[in-house]
C-alpha cells in the first residue's frame, strides 16, 4: 500500500484544517496538516489521465451553480493539444447576492485552492492558470498573492515542479465589478480584455476558450475539493455524502436567523437541519416566510419545502436549483413584491445587454414590480410578468443569466400570487391582459 494512502476518517475535506474558522492557514500549517501531499502523490504516481479518471469516478459536480460533472468537463479538453497551450481558469468572481463561500475559502485556506488548481492543471495539462478574482475581495487578493509566493518558494508553482517535468504559472486577475463576468464565456472575454459579453457555444471553451486555446473554467469550491479526492480516493469521497450527489458542500443560512454563517455539510442534509441545528433558527420575533436555496438567482421556496434534501436533483424536482448552496431566509416582515423588486433591479442593472430578451425583459419586469409595490399595478400585470418569465427561460437567451434572474420571480408569483394581486389598482383602466412575446411593437396587435 502506498505511503500516501492510508485509512483516513476525515469527513470535511474543505474545512477540517481550519480551527474555529478564525486564522488563515498558511503554508507551514497547511503542510503539517497533509497539505500538498495529494500534489506530491499525483505528480509521482499518477498520469494526468488517471487524475481525470479519479475525479470522474468521484462524481464531483461543479460548485459554482451549474453542477456539471468536473471530471467530464476535464475530459473534454483535447489530449493532444495542437495549439501549444491549455488554460485553467479559476472562477473567483463571486457576486451572486447572498453568497459568501468562495471568499471564506480564499480567506481561510488559500493553499487548498492553490493545490486544487495545481492538481487540476496537471490533469488537463494546463501550463497557465488565472484566478479571476472579484475586485472587492481585497483581503482574498492579499492572501492569495502571499500564498502564491510561499508556494513558489517551495517549488510547488513554477517550472519542473518537484522534478516532475510539470510546469505551471498561476496569476491573479482582478475584475472591475460586473456580475456577468462570473459566466464562463463572459469571464474568458473579460480576461482577454474584451467587453464581457457571453460567447455563443459551440465552440465550447474546452475546444476554443481563452485566446482560442483549450480552456477549463472551474469554481473555487470545486477546485478546493480536488486534493482530498486524490488523497483519500473517490470511494471515500462518495461515502462522506448522505445521498447520490457525492462529497460535501459549503451550506449556510443568512437573513434574520440567529447565527448566520456557513458550514461544510454532506449532501443530503436538509435545509431545516441547516436552519435549525446550525443557524439557530429564526431570530426572536421573526418567522420564516420563504427561502432561497442558493443565492438570489435560484427559485424562491416556501417553508413547506424546508425538509428537502440540499442537493442538485431534489431541488430541481421542486422547481428550484441548488445554485451556490448558501440559503437565504426571508422573514414574515418582508413583502415579497418589494423583495423581488430588489432582486430584479440587481439583475436588470447587471445584465450585459448583449441579447434582447434579457436587456429589455428585465427592466420591464422592474417597471411592473415598482408599480405593484406602489399599489399602482394594472389588471394583467401579473400575466405580463409570467410571460416575461417564459420569454427569459432557459434556451431563450444567450446565457444562463436571464433564466437565473427570473426563476425567483416565477416561483414568487406561483407561491405568493396574493401579494402581487394586492398591488393592483382596480380603478386603473385595463390595457392588456395577454402578451405574446416581449417586443413592445407586438402589444398593439393584441
Amino acid at each position, binding site marked *: 500500500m502506498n505511503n500516501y494512502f492510508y485509512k483516513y476518517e476525515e469527513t470535511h475535506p474543505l474545512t477540517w484544517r481550519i480551527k474555529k474558522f478564525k486564522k488563515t492557514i498558511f503554508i507551514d500549517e497547511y503542510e503539517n496538516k497533509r497539505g500538498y501531499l495529494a500534489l506530491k502523490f499525483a505528480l509521482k504516481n499518477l498520469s494526468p489521465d488517471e487524475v481525470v479518471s479519479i475525479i470522474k469516478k468521484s462524481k464531483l459536480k461543479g460548485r459554482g451553480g451549474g453542477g456539471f460533472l468536473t471530471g467530464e468537463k476535464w475530459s473534454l479538453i483535447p489530449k493532444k493539444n495542437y495549439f501549444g497551450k491549455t488554460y485553467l481558469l479559476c472562477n473567483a468572481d*463571486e*457576486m*451572486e*447576492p*447572498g*453568497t*459568501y463561500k*468562495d*471568499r471564506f475559502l480564499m480567506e481561510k485556506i488559500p493553499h487548498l485552492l492553490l493545490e486544487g488548481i495545481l492538481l487540476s492543471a496537471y490533469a488537463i495539462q494546463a501550463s497557465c492558470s488565472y484566478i479571476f478574482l*472579484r*475586485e*472587492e*475581495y*481585497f*483581503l482574498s487578493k492579499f492572501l492569495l498573492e502571499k500564498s502564491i509566493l510561499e508556494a513558489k518558494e517551495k517549488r510547488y508553482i513554477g517550472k519542473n515542479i518537484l522534478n516532475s517535468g510539470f510546469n505551471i504559472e498561476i*496569476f491573479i*486577475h*482582478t*475584475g*472591475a*465589478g*460586473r*456580475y456577468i463576468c462570473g459566466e464562463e464565456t463572459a469571464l474568458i472575454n*473579460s*480576461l*482577454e*480584455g*474584451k*467587453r*464581457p459579453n457571453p460567447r455563443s457555444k459551440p465552440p465550447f471553451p474546452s475546444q476554443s476558450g481563452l*485566446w482560442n486555446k483549450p480552456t477549463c473554467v472551474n469554481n473555487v469550491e470545486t477546485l478546493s475539493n480536488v486534493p482530498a479526492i486524490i488523497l483519500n480516493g473517490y470511494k471515500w469521497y462518495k461515502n462522506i455524502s448522505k445521498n447520490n450527489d457525492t462529497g460535501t458542500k459549503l451550506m*449556510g443560512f*443568512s*437573513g*434574520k436567523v440567529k447565527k*448566520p*454563517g*456557513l458550514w461544510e455539510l454532506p449532501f443530503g442534509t436538509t435545509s431545516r437541519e441547516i436552519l435549525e441545528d446550525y443557524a439557530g433558527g429564526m431570530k426572536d420575533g421573526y418567522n420564516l416566510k420563504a427561502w*432561497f436555496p442558493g443565492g*438570489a438567482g435560484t427559485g424562491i421556496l416556501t417553508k413547506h419545502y424546508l425538509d428537502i434534501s440540499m442537493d442538485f436533483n431534489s431541488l430541481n424536482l421542486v422547481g428550484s436549483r441548488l445554485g451556490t448552496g*448558501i440559503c*437565504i*431566509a*426571508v*422573514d414574515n416582515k*418582508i413583502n415579497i413584491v418589494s*423583495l423581488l423588486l*430588489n*432582486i430584479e*433591479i*440587481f439583475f436588470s442593472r*447587471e445584465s*450585459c445587454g448583449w441579447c434582447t430578451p434579457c436587456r429589455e425583459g428585465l427592466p420591464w419586469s422592474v417597471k411592473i414590480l415598482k408599480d405593484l409595490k406602489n399599489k399602482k399595478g394594472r389588471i394583467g400585470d401579473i400575466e405580463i410578468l409570467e410571460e416575461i418569465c417564459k420569454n427569459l427561460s432557459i434556451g431563450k437567451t444567450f446565457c444562463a443569466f436571464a433564466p437565473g434572474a427570473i426563476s425567483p420571480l416565477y416561483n414568487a408569483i406561483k407561491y405568493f400570487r396574493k401579494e402581487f394581486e394586492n398591488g393592483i389598482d382596480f380603478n386603473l383602466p385595463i390595457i392588456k391582459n395577454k402578451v405574446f412575446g416581449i417586443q413592445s411593437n407586438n402589444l398593439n396587435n393584441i
Partner: protein
Amino acid sequence: MINDKEKKFILKELNKYENSDAVIVESLKFVQKRLGWISLDTMSEISKIISVPVSKIESIATFYNQIFRKPVGKNIIKYCDGVVCYINGYKKIKNAISKHLNINTGCTTKDNKFTLIPICCLGNCDNSPTIMINENLFSNITVKSAINILESIK
C-alpha cells in the same frame, strides 16, 4: 498624467497575458487609484503605452462599474444593496449616510471628501448589513455605527 511608476507597472503587467488588451482593466484600475477617476486623456496615454485604440479602452472603461468616468470624492462609500442586506435593512443605513453627507446615491460631497454608490452583494451576508469604504469592509452596520465611521474618516 501617467507617471513612470504607473507606466512601469502597466508594462510589467503585459508579461502576464498573451495580448495587450488584457491589461486594460488592470491599467485603468492602477491609474485610477492615484487619480480617482479615468479621463479621456488618461485613456489616450494608456492607449499609447499598450498600443490599443482609445475607443477600445473606452468601451471597457464604460462597461465596468468600478471604473469611474467622472471625478469622485477622496473616499468611496459603497453600500451593499444585495438581497440579504435588503432583508436586514440596508435602506435605513443608506438613507442615514445620505442625510448625514447631504448627498444622493451617485453624488459627491461639496468638499470632495465622499462619494456614495451602490454595489452588488459584497459577499459578507453573514455579517449583514455591510458597507465598504475604499478597501475597508464594515460589518453589522447600524445607523449609529455608519455615522461614527464617517466621522472618523479625516
